[in-house]
């Protein structure tokens, strides 16, 4: 029964007030924080409605009034408690602040994207479609295949590298270089990754090569560092006691890693991989260069141009034709579809961590 919430309020400790005071010191009434927040919201809302201040300013007013809570606390409870209250206000505000763009973007994508959704949108390609109609089947298939292949390439490489760094390297020179260069790799601009993949494939297949798998390679360059970094951090957090316990039982190292360390870190690793996929699934520039653009369905990763959702959305927005509405609506639909895919992935990731993580305290 461990809870991380505040120590129980006065209601739960019946008895003379003096004893309570002595044990906990003076405290704000339990309704204090709520009252301050409520007051702040009411004032801001009133100003918003009556004085017509804009939304951002209203939010700022809520924040400013919330800061009264730590001030009040410093008077009643003393500095330590007041600092705690201040941080609570700051943490909560940063969260609310982050929610602003989040909801703004989600709202935009969903309202604009749902217009075109329908059976045809998911089962039709753009072949021979001008103006209204058509769908994203070709781009959806391309995105799934290209990103899938990128995942198949990056996840083993990334995970094994992380395992090497944490379990085998012992901080040797090679590992320090790898760790450093992986960080450098995160800064490769996506368009450079695309150019690199193109140059690489030209070496083998000649000029003008366009392949879905080339897109996967470009995405892998972007994806591997994210997988390595997140996996490494998660592996580092596995307590050494677990490893030692396993060695003490005579379990070989590789079985320790695969049966003890990895499952313990699984939830985090899976989150990391999902993030890595999310990071690359919306990439446009490299795919435009190496996977090209087409209106038709192509299931073969190793032959010819392959459409993908981000490229589709980008080209639809950029050169919409006349009238532009149909094309732009389709672009938003494609963006929404990307979001849905990642949502689904997240869901799968959660299920995986739920079912495969060792049942422990968490």
């Amino acid at each position, binding site marked *: 029964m461990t809870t991380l919430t505040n120590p129980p309020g006065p209601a739960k400790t019946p008895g003379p007030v003096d004893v309570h005071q002595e044990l906990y010191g003076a405290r704000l009434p339990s309704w204090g924080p709520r009252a301050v927040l409520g007051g702040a919201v009411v004032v801001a809302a009133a100003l918003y409605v009556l004085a017509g201040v804009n939304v951002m300013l209203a939010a700022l007013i809520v924040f400013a009034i919330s800061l009264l809570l730590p001030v009040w606390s410093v008077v009643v409870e003393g500095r330590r408690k007041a600092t705690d209250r201040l941080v609570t206000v700051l943490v909560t505000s940063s969260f609310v602040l982050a929610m602003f763009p989040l909801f703004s973007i989600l709202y935009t994508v969903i309202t604009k994207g749902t217009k075109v959704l329908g059976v*045809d949108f998911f*089962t*039709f*390609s753009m*072949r*021979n*479609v*001008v*103006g209204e109609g*058509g*769908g994203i*089947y*070709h781009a959806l*298939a391309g995105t*799934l295949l290209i990103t*899938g292949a990128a995942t198949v390439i990056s996840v083993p490489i990334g995970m094994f590298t992380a395992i090497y760094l944490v379990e085998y390297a012992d901080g040797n020179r090679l590992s320090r270089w790898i760790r450093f260069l992986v960080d450098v790799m995160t800064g490769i601009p996506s368009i450079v990754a695309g150019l690199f993949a193109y140059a690489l494939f030209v070496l083998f297949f*000649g*000029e*003008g*090569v*366009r392949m879905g798998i080339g897109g996967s390679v470009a995405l892998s360059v972007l994806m591997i560092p994210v997988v390595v970094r997140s996996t490494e951090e998660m592996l580092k957090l596995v307590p050494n006691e677990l490893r030692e316990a396993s060695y003490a039982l005579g379990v070989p190292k590789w079985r320790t890693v695969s049966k003890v360390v990895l499952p313990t870190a699984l939830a985090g690793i899976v989150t990391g991989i999902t993030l890595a996929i999310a990071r690359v699934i919306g990439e446009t520039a490299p795919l*435009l*260069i190496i996977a*090209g*653009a*087409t*209106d*038709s*369905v192509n*299931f073969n990763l190793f032959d*010819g*141009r392959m459409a993908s959702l981000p490229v589709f959305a980008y*080209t639809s*927005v*950029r*050169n*919409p*034709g*006349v009238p*532009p509405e149909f094309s732009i609506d389709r672009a938003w639909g494609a963006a929404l579809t990307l979001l849905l895919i990642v949502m689904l992935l997240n869901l799968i990731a959660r299920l*995986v961590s739920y*079912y*495969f993580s060792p049942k422990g305290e968490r």
Partner: protein
Amino acid sequence: MIRKKLRVAAPAAMLALALGLSACGAGNEDSSSDDGAAPSGDSVSGTLNGAGSSAQEAAVGAWKAKFQTANSDATVNYDPVGSGGGREQFIAGGVQFAGSDAYLTDEELTGAKEKCESDIVEVPTYVSPIAVVYNLDGVDDLNLSAETIAGIFAGKIATWDDAAIKADNPDAELPSTKITPVHRSDDSGTTQNFTDYLSKAASSVWTDEAAQTWPIKGGEAAEGTSGVIAAVGGGDGTVGYADESQAGELGKANVKVGEDFVAPTPEAAAKVLDTAKAVEGRDATDIAVDIDRTTEAAGVYPIVLASYQIACQTYSDADTAALVKAWLTYVTSTDGQSAAADAAGSAPLSGDFATKVQAAVETIKAA
């Protein structure tokens, strides 16, 4: 137990999903040509790949649709990577045709001829008026001379009630709003043509040369045609230049030609090709033209973008040659040009010029 099962089931399910996916084509695509109407004898098949100008993309989309409907076994792909990229890839032999907002330079021409081992066919396929778009409350009709446009974009004319603008619009009520000129931040054929116009038609005011990159500092910059439209639409007193077909709700200025003010319409833009001069020293199949920006002919709109398609004259492979020829024949035909006019708002080629273009395309053959 459950965990064991899941461990097996998950990859299996993914595999099944992948297989299921690969099993079915798109709802609107027929793998076989059972359209009822059997393809006529001269229909072509195969895959034709092109790359280049993104300005042409909407038009190419329309051409592809019609072309692929007529030739159900043919697939045309076009990567809108930009004109420079298209020319590079064509010269490197990566694509069978290129779309480009500028004709090949002499150096590029040599490279292209080497790669083709023959002459090349270079034809204007997409001619589109570039409108001076503006967003100004209360002003629906605006006339501008070349010098005024240059002054506005150079930052020398700062407010809408400037004497120069008033002189062009004696009847209009102009507010004193500040002018915010918007230009393209990306390199583009549109900028090239617009600055070419300014430097030739208003050489006293505009001292920079024509360039794909906006040559002067200052002003607002936006990416792509859609970006310029959004930026102009987003402010008051803004003015920019963009494809006429994309202007939407924005006001489009009439440009002074001779003594009249001409609206940016496809018809007025099409006429400019009749006054255009052929580039010297080019083969008969290389129809590269320099547009006459200073024309005074009535009803001609001089700020246009002429975008080309470039192909080899001979291809070693007979199928490819047939495919390229069929494609370009359709693109330059009356049908093709009117399809592009509908879908992309371009100015259709017509008259003698169209005949000349079609004759050039006719020379494409297998080696």
